[in-house]
């Protein structure tokens, strides 16, 4: 059944959407979209390093993203720059280093477009295993730190005072984000991963009124975006990442309709 590349891509993509749902909601709640962007830009560096030293791509991306996240924390303590400036600094310098390294690796045939925007042809059976096993691990860890993470998202002091140890769960959350980026880089590509985290969660925000509902809707709209996006990618021969994100955007626009209707009704 997994012989067909398209089926493989679908199975992997759905797995990614399930993991991206709850993490995406947290990214939105904590206003971390630029942080996600920085991690995913640094993922390109991870990929080139993987090629240079023939490492596993997901592993190398995970390590680089985690290092960048730690660097950010230590720079925040040491410098007087605001968080967003530091994020921009790290995002673009790691992206640049990654691209420079690709130039050095001219002896390896590189599919740069594939790295940046995702390539469904590249998804192997091993990748499916990685996505589902890695994804399950991420979700299980998330389940155990959820109460702490969630309460710290609402109010850090309150969470700390009531024994939730938010500092620890914040740190783990950063690693989980790096993990989901590592899992999805082949499929979605370095430039667009944050889109798959953010847009389904944004759709869910428009039409939900409790945190749990928002997570469920984020997962469902993520899956829908992946499935429709991949079919479109196959039909009209476009890169998989952008196709998925465009579908997600269309869903987002549709999700605005109930808000509009509600607003109109309230005016009357």
């Amino acid at each position, binding site marked *: 059944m997994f012989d067909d590349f398209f089926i493989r891509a679908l199975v992997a993509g759905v797995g990614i959407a399930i993991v991206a749902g709850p993490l995406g909601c947290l990214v939105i*709640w904590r*206003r971390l979209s630029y942080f996600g962007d920085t991690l995913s830009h640094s993922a390109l560096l991870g990929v080139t390093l993987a090629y240079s030293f023939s490492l596993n791509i997901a592993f190398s991306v995970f390590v680089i993203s985690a290092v960048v996240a730690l660097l950010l924390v230590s720079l925040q303590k040491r410098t007087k720059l605001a968080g967003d400036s530091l994020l921009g600094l790290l995002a673009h310098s790691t992206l640049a280093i990654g691209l420079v390294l690709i130039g050095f690796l001219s002896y390896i045939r590189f599919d740069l477009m594939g790295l940046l925007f995702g390539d469904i042809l590249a998804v192997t059976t091993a990748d499916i295993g990685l996505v589902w096993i890695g994804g399950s691990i991420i979700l299980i860890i998330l389940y155990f730190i959820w109460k702490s993470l969630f309460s710290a998202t609402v109010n850090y002091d*309150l969470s*700390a005072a009531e024994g939730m140890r938010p500092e620890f769960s914040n740190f783990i959350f950063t690693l989980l984000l790096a993990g989901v980026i590592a899992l999805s880089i082949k499929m979605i590509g370095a430039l667009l991963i944050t889109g798959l985290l953010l847009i389904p969660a944004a759709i869910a925000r428009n039409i939900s009124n409790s945190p749990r*509902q928002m997570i469920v809707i984020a997962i469902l709209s993520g899956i829908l975006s992946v499935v429709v996006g991949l079919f479109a990618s196959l039909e009209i021969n476009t890169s998989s990442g952008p196709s998925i994100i465009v579908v997600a955007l269309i869903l987002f626009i549709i999700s605005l309709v109930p808000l509009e209707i509600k607003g109109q009704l309230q005016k009357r």
Partner: protein
Amino acid sequence: MNENNNLLVRLRDCGVQKSSKWIVKGISLEIHKGKIVTLIGPNGSGKTTTAKMALNILKSDEGSIENYSTKMAYVPQKISIDWTMPLRVIDFMNLTSHINKDEIIEALELTGVQHLIYDEIHNLSGGEFQRVLIARAIAKKPDLLVLDEPVQGVDFNGEIALYNLIKEICIKLNCGILLISHDLHFVMSATDHVICLNGHICCSGSPKSIVKNSSYIELFGEHNAATLSLYQHEHDHSHQTDGSVKN
């Protein structure tokens, strides 16, 4: 355990330093079960910082903190309610521990906001949200309750009712309460121990010993009069601009 089973928190000579400046220094206090300890003092005098030390949110840069409390609840001074999260009151009540629905409703009834249980938090007014915060802390049935200006933004009648509720809760749950308040009326009439802060402990003791002339407050009854009389404590020291003691 400790020699005194009623002791919840003991701070000995604690202080917090931020970029080589002491925010508070030399703070010693004890909170016991069933007692209300109040912190009063001007803005920036370190009331919230002291509360955060007692709650283990901030580490003390000197002295020692003993904390024997098993369940703490906190009503912080400011929570921004500009959330991107669809959070209803009932979700917020369950934030740090699972509380069953009957107890949630009961606690919300105590603070008079049971009708808001399914409303989204960001649609509440400041006063309503403050009531929800207090209800949440009560519903946790803590043994140590820290309230940082809990009635800000609450209407006048509500203020009195909530202060009475705090007193009631203290007796009913037999919990220790650390309260930061500007309402000197309540502080003087209902609390067991008052600490006057200004970067350090200016004076502390029972309300009566703090205000030598407590009948003065009762006579005038007004907020301003109370304020004036309160700060008429006998100063055996003078302050520098940062609140530290001049030698």
